């Protein structure tokens, strides 16, 4: 007994020597490691399937590797060039040397193709010049170039080359907002026949906004009904809300096609009733796209709203009414602000999903309804222009991030205030 009492204070003194914070960290470390190990597979999965592909793709929107890969030394020299007069002999010499070396290789071919995108005809120019390289004896590199094609004596030709001498370029990003570099490297409006992307982006945002508003108008009353009904009825409603998820989106779009076409069920029914004389044009225009998209996205609006509304006690509206506020005003001033995080989350979800929509407009819309994703798909599948595809994606991605930040600013502040203890 005496031994025990004697040792105890010593042990405590030793304990006290270690700061409390260190003790806490030590005690929590195992727990943290355990939790970390549990989510590690998910983190690895997400890194490989999400973070890495997105980063890689976004990098492509500013990537410009072809010229630098084919002509590293010339590129280096051209980066230092002022672009006002023809490049120095050193540049000509280096270009002649590198052209001779890479002639006929795939690296050369892709560089030529890349330059052809800047200026149609450049590919032929490159091929033709390459055949004349290296320069004949007694001929300077400059003379050899101009002899091969007089365009090499023109400063503009070199400017095209110079603009692509850097491993990164803002060209694709500028093009996706209808801007381009002029001959002197300044940002100007793109030519009218190329300037289509601002309209596409506007249309993407506009259509997303319309779909979101319709989803909100249709979904809010249902979410409210579900949140206020007894569980038995709410569960039945919930099944109906989730029912569309049981079918693939492609099948649903195809079903709308069948329903809405001019000889489809809707038109037949309307004609049978006598409401219309000739069939309404319901597909291959914006009507069809809106109908199908609202239908597909409605659950994404309803579910977040429902989950928020379910947490709002009906006592609040009662309290407002008891304080003398008429029922609708009570709803608007007391219930709605509390439901706002749900409305915001649902709206944001629908809007973001909308911006990326591809299948539905592609199948149910006309060319006038195609959104940004269509062009992303077009550039990846048809022209293999990764730069443009990535740039358009990057703009959608940036818009999503901005929206999310606005949302978390607006709603997060309220939430924080509400949750603060």
């Amino acid at each position, binding site marked *: 007994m005496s031994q025990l009492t004697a040792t105890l204070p010593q042990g405590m003194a030793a304990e006290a020597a270690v700061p409390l914070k260190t003790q806490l960290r030590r005690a929590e470390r195992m727990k943290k490691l355990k939790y970390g190990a549990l989510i590690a597979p998910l983190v690895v999965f997400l890194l490989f399937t999400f973070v890495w592909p997105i980063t890689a793709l976004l990098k492509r929107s500013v990537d410009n590797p072809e010229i630098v890969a084919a002509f590293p030394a010339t590129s280096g020299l051209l980066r230092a060039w002022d672009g006002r007069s023809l490049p120095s002999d050193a540049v000509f010499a280096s270009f002649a040397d590198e052209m001779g070396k890479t002639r006929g290789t795939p690296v050369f071919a892709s560089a030529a193709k890349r330059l052809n995108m800047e200026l149609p005809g450049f590919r032929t120019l490159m091929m033709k010049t390459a055949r004349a390289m290296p320069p004949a004896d007694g001929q300077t590199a400059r003379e050899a170039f101009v002899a091969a094609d007089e365009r090499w004596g023109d400063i503009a030709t070199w400017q095209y080359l110079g603009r692509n001498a850097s491993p990164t370029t803002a060209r694709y990003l500028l093009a996706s907002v209808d801007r381009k570099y002029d001959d002197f490297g300044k940002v100007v409006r793109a030519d009218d026949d190329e300037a289509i992307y601002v309209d596409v982006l506007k249309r993407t945002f506009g259509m997303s906004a319309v779909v979101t508003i319709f989803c909100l108008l249709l979904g809010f009353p249902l979410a409210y009904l579900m949140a206020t009904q007894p569980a038995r009825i709410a569960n039945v409603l919930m099944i109906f809300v989730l029912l569309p998820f049981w079918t693939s989106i492609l099948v649903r779009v195809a079903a709308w096609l069948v329903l809405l076409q001019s000889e489809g069920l809707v038109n037949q029914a309307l004609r049978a009733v006598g409401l219309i004389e000739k069939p309404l044009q319901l597909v291959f225009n914006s009507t069809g796209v809106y109908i199908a998209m609202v239908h597909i996205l409605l659950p994404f609006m309803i579910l977040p709203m429902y989950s928020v509304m379910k947490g709002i006690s009906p006592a*609040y509206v*009662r*309290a407002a*009414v*008891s304080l003398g*506020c*008429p029922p609708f005003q009570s709803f608007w*001033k007391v219930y709605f602000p509390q439901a706002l995080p749900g409305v915001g989350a649902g709206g944001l979800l629908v809007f973001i999903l909308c911006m990326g929509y591809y299948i539905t407009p592609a199948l149910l819309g006309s060319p006038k309804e195609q959104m940004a994703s269509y062009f992303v798909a077009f550039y990846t599948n048809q022209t293999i222009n990764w730069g443009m595809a990535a740039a358009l994606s990057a703009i959608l991605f940036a818009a999503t991030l901005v929206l999310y930040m606005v949302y978390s600013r607006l709603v997060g502040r*309220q939430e924080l205030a*509400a949750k603060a203890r």
Partner: protein
Amino acid sequence: MTTIASRIDGAPHVTFRKVQKTYDGENLIVRDLNLDIRRGEFLTLLGPSGSGKTTCLMMLAGFETPTSGEIRLGDRVINTVPPHKRNIGMVFQNYALFPHMTVSENLRFPLAIRKLPAADIDRKVARALDMVQLGSFGDRYPQQMSGGQQQRVALARALVFDPELVLMDEPLGALDKQLREHMQIELKHIHEKLGITIVFVTHDQSEALTMSDRIAVFNQGIIQQLDDPTALYEKPANNFVANFIGENNALPGYVESVHGETCQVKLDNGARVQASLGNPVKRGDRTMLSVRPECVQLNVQSLGCANRLGGYVREVIYLGDHLRVRVELAGRKEIIVKAPAAQHKHRFDMGDAIHVGINPEQLRALDPAIGAPGAAA
């Protein structure tokens, strides 16, 4: 009692006349309710859950409509007046403070609806916050306050627009015992200061006894007794009230004779006792005698009592200020006795024979049919 009586004038403030309420068309939640609430009184609706007390309150607030009958506020029938036009303040069970508004915004809400001038609003909000001692808390959000503070804000919000009447639906239920008792006293003082009519719903009898001028005891949709706390405890009108408020010993027997306010009852175990009349009973009726545990005298203290019975001590529990004694009377009937500890320390033990004395005025003969479950149908 006199101060309260003088403050309450003649005409009833709220009147329920033959009010009935059913939700499913089969079971009446409230049956034939007749109730006059006096101006300025603190009236408590007390009863077990499902007894109809909250439904009554909700009908008065306007959130439920009576199936039949009429409710008057002053001389106005308010059956069809929507709740927001009744000018009745209400404190809810979980306060229902608007979480997206600060405390002062919560308090401004009813005033802004009434389109009061801004200066008046500021003055009234400040005064209401001071009244509940939360003067410096105006900028907080409700979630940043303790339960007791939220409770006060809810009270201030219900009072800030000078309502005609304040209803409270178990407002103290969520607080811990100590805080609840503190709030009861505070509420009572606020009521005394403002002289406003308060209708309070609770299932907690001690809460009802602490605060109320009058208590209406509900069971199965019927008011069993409407009386002041003293009368309710000392003179319960029927079995239900006797059992629901405080502790009660019930002794069944037959009425042998009735003499004015007293009667002679032959208990089922054969003993004869004198009892006062609680309900009108006549000779030959079955009766249930009711006596509070603290009104039963033991041994020496029982000497002066008119009714003396013999029994055995079955259990003694020491509770500091009193002893709780379980006594088996002849005929295997057990009663609970609360005996002051100072008088009885170590005088008896388990198994001892003991004398039990009860004075006739504290032994009330009640009609077992009145207030018994199912009797009201």
